[in-house]
């Protein structure tokens, strides 16, 4: 692995050298008054928010004389290598005052920058935290950054801002269901999204059946969604990357913010530990449905039943020197459901589940051109059920645990040339649904299901480079490998799918099955003029771990399983092309993207599948192919009193499975039309209003078309898989925000939201039920639509000090 990594890295360096000569020629034309040619110096440093000390991710560093620039990386670091000479450099970040500095470059320069947020002036509202004209200029495709700031005033459900629900309003991203934080990207499944919180993989991003996401918006600094043209530094999932980074903590003073809502409240505290050296942030959230319910349950047999969730984000960082900085961040969240009583024999159930992640990071600057981040990450997703009735007890546990080491380098050899390379290793432990139950003194347990273990590794290198004034290319290669290792018992099954006596045992760390793949990534931008560009990209991805669900909702019981002897890795190829246009002085950005994606080794359950405990789910899989294509339109107004966006997607997502009764079918999340409008308007200094409207073609479902009678009972004969549609989905939400009187020390606002303003009964699911004795006239067949949320108002009080 290591050797290969070095090989990849060196190939890349070789290719960069000859390309420089092109750049020099261009340089000669533009640089003003060079004293001595061909001597290069570097300007580097960090860009931060002046008030909070937070790193500004993706801030522009622009060299006026060359009309070229660079952007900061995820730690706010930038590096520019220029020929000696005089330059004016502008540091630009949307929502912040520009800063311009003149350099007479005769030596390497360290220049840290603190940008000041623009204060809100009446008549001109600027959304903080968005990148500038990178939309047209970068090679990024299908990539969107969302700042929490920009969604603050949007309507919410249950009084809680949720970044996962906001990304569902973007083209190419579809909600997995009413009020649900699960999402599908460009025709891919819910397990094909790589969700990262400070680099740690979050395996189940939902609380409460997905109605809340695990991401507490107060603690989030930056969110990036990549739907296509995924750069080589990301991998492991087919469809998208959602990279969320937590705030680092205010380095200047202790501040707090929070909110009190109808069913949950949150509080965040942040501040310096040692001025200029170290800071912290702690953010917590808890629901209180359980407290609210207790009075109603008191005295009943269900006393003590309840449900709540909480989560906690913490992060501390310490700066040793200009060159070394460390971060320690963690997330811990739990959903806890307990139930007692019921009619039957002191029935008691306790069900906790949730994620825990811990990330240790070390930023190191080798020199002004080479930035390194090394991370050690641990994450754990766990689901448990403990239940019992008198002398009958049952327990189940499932989950996934990872230990992950990664090193990423950013190398900035010259202006207009950026290199990233790195390596990533993960050790996975998968715990399938393993359960035991006890009847009196006898314990029942099948031992043919045990943990599965696997190594996953990757090396990558990518190079972004300006071929000339018009063309910028980003090419990269990622090599990935996956190995299931022992201890593992390979069972052989008889025709009844019972375990036979023939068992092959793999010792600890012994190779069970190894897979590997090369993942080329490529994207090209052609600048038509300053404001518009054409881009095209190709991405190949392998995915070695899978989550298969037979439910239309994502549930905490959904299992992650590794590629194995029977399950091959998923693979996808995505081609995308787009036109990007910024207009009216970059106030508006817009794009049209077309994508075509093929997916191999997609997984579904067999037709007659029924979940069963203590059975390896692999036995019930069938494998097939997927195709997805579509066109996405996006127009966004980024500044002004009135801002927002419109997104529209026309798409198709299809599957082909030889071993299913229906071989060709659309996916559950195949939605022909999907659109959203998001508007926000600053009425006055104290009032702002916002509205979102969503529209989508109804989800495809499988309904029974025929009935027949077995033992006198009606039985369903289903039509082809996903051949029916639910009604179209549409909904309007509105919100009003009232800001408290300006006070330097304390700021507050009330957010009044109304979800589903015109009380549309959007279908959650359909079912068909029968009543009465079939052989009499009383027999009746009825179709039902179940909808979740009627018009739903909520109010939240938010504060900041």
């Amino acid at each position, binding site marked *: 692995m290591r050797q290969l990594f070095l090989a990849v890295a060196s190939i890349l360096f070789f290719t960069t050298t000859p390309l420089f000569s092109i750049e020099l020629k261009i340089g000669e034309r533009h640089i003003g008054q060079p004293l001595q040619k061909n001597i290069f110096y570097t300007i580097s440093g960090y860009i931060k928010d002046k008030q909070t000390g937070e790193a500004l991710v993706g801030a522009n560093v622009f060299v006026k004389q060359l009309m070229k620039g660079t952007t900061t990386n995820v730690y706010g670091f930038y590096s520019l290598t220029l020929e000696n000479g005089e330059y004016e450099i502008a540091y630009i970040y949307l929502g912040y005052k520009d800063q311009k500095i003149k350099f007479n470059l005769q030596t390497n320069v360290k220049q840290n920058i603190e940008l000041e947020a623009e204060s809100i002036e009446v008549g001109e509202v600027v959304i903080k935290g968005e990148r500038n004209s990178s939309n047209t200029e970068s090679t990024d495709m299908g990539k969107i950054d969302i700042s929490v700031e920009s969604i603050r005033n949007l309507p919410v459900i249950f009084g809680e801002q949720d970044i996962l629900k906001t990304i569902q309003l973007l083209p190419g991203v579809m909600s997995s269901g009413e009020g649900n934080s699960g999402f599908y990207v460009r025709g891919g499944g819910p397990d094909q999204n790589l969700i990262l919180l400070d680099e740690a993989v979050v395996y189940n991003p939902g609380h409460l*059946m997905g109605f809340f996401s695990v991401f507490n918006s107060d603690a989030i600094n930056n969110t990036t969604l990549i739907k296509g043209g995924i750069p080589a530094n990301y991998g492991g999932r087919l469809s998208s990357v959602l990279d969320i980074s937590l705030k680092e903590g205010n380095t200047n003073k202790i501040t707090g913010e929070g909110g009190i809502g109808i069913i949950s409240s949150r509080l965040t505290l942040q501040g310096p530990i040692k001025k200029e050296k170290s800071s912290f942030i702690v953010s917590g959230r808890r629901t209180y449905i359980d407290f609210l319910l207790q009075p109603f349950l008191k005295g009943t047999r269900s006393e003590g039943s309840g449900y709540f969730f909480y989560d906690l984000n913490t992060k501390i960082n310490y700066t040793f020197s200009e060159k070394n900085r460390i971060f320690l961040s963690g997330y811990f969240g739990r959903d806890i*459901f307990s139930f007692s009583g019921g009619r039957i024999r002191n029935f008691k*159930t306790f069900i906790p589940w949730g994620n825990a992640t811990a990330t240790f990071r070390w930023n190191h600057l080798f020199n002004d051109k080479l930035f390194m981040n090394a991370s050690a990450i641990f994450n754990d997703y766990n689901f448990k*059920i403990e239940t019992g009735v008198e002398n009958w007890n049952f327990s189940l546990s499932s989950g996934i645990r990872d230990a992950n080491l990664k090193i990423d380098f950013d190398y900035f050899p010259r202006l207009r040339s950026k290199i990233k390379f790195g390596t990533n290793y993960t050790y996975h432990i998968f715990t399938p649904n393993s359960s035991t139950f006890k009847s*009196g003194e006898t314990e029942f347990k099948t031992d043919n299901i045990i943990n599965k273990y696997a190594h996953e590794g990757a090396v990558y290198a990518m190079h972004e480079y300006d071929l000339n004034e018009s063309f910028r290319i980003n090419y990269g290669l990622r090599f990935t490998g996956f190995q299931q290792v022992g201890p593992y018992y390979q069972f052989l099954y008889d025709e009844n799918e019972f375990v036979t006596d023939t068992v092959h045992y793999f010792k600890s760390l012994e190779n069970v099955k190894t897979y590997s793949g090369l993942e080329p990534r490529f994207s090209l931008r052609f600048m038509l003029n300053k404001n518009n560009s054409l881009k095209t990209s190709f991405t190949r991805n392998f995915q070695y771990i899978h989550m298969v669900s037979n439910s239309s909702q994502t549930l905490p*019981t959904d299992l992650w399983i590794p590629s194995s002897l029977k399950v091959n890795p998923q693979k996808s190829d995505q081609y995308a092309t787009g036109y990007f246009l910024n207009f009216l002085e970059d106030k508006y950005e817009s794009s049209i993207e077309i994508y075509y994606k093929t997916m191999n080794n997609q997984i579904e359950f067999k037709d007659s599948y029924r*979940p069963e*405990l203590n059975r390896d789910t692999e036995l019930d899989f069938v494998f097939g192919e997927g195709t997805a294509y579509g066109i996405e339109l996006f127009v966004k107004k980024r500044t002004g009193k009135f801002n927002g966006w419109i997104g529209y997607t026309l798409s198709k997502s299809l599957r082909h499975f030889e071993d299913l009764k229906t071989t060709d079918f659309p996916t559950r999340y195949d939605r022909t039309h999907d659109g959203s409008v998001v508007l926000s308007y600053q009425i006055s200094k104290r009032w702002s209003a916002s509205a979102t409207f969503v529209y989508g073609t109804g989800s495809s479902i499988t309904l029974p078309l025929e009935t027949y009678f077995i033992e006198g009972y009606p039985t369903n004969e*289903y039509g082809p898989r996903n051949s029916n549609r639910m009604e179209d989905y549409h909904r309007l939400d509105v919100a009003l925000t009232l800001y408290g009187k300006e006070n330097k020390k304390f700021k507050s606002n009330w957010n009044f939201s109304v979800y589903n303003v015109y009380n549309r009964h959007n279908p959650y699911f359909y079912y068909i039920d029968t009543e009465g004795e079939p052989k009499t006239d009383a027999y009746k067949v009825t179709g039902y639509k179940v909808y979740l949320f009627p018009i739903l108002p909520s109010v939240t009080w938010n504060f900041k000090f």
Partner: protein
Amino acid sequence: MNLLNKNFFILITALLLSSCEEEITIDLPESGGKMVLEGKIEKGMPPIIYLTETISFFSSISVEKIQSAYIHNANITISNGDTTVKLKEYRSDSIQFFLNTLPPIFKLIYGNMLPEFLLKNNDTLPSGTSFFVYYFYTLDFNNINLSSIFLGEDGKNYSLTIKEGNRTLTGVTSIPVIKNLDSLWFEKTDNPLNDTNVILWTQLTDSVLPGNNYRYFTRRNREPFFPNPYGSVFDDHLINGKSLTFSVDRGRNRNVENEPGTGRTFNIGDTVTVKWCAIDRDHYLFWRSLEADRRSVGNPFGSPTII
């Protein structure tokens, strides 16, 4: 267990959400007309076959429609490897007549197998509804060799061939050797206020050989045998070779709304008969998916189980 899982999600959802339900009309394409075979052979019993067609779901299902789903005049033969016999079609409205023509021993056998026919008469039907006529195929009693009657036997395999028009259907099944229940007993429910209901418990010792599949029915007093609507089958994946004590939930007619509060229990004074069956794997898988599908109706987290 799975049931518990799903119920738990519904419960949580219900705790928080005010989900609502409304009737809808769904436009479904017209279909139907697939041949459906329901056949039974049990130890000591003659074979009995119901042959129908599927009915399009939304073509305003009526008694007449269901009545007309029966397939008549099919050519059906059954074989146990040694003997092959041809079956004959009968009508349920001539059931008394049919029973009266039987030798006494078969009167009892068919009387047990076809109680639903006997229960149904015009008095118990709502006024205005007509008597529903069942059609079934069984041994031809006019043409029978009393010394070697074709009855189900332990450990035998059976194959069936049906010819009707230009359609041909074949099927196979077997009667595995049964392991009987160790014991059965009643216990009061744990609700001290409820002194009229009891739970039926049983102990089963599974055979040491893996691969046993079970199905059970209960019969209360003179009612027919009913399977437990929430699941009447299980296998010995978990319990192979072990002794297990469990409650036997009362089977009931799914088509009739359940009496409140007594879902799984029996009343004091009931005479309960448990029919305990060993079934083969295919038979087990069929019931498992069929019952799973019936359970998933109305469950937002469920999904259709294609049988």
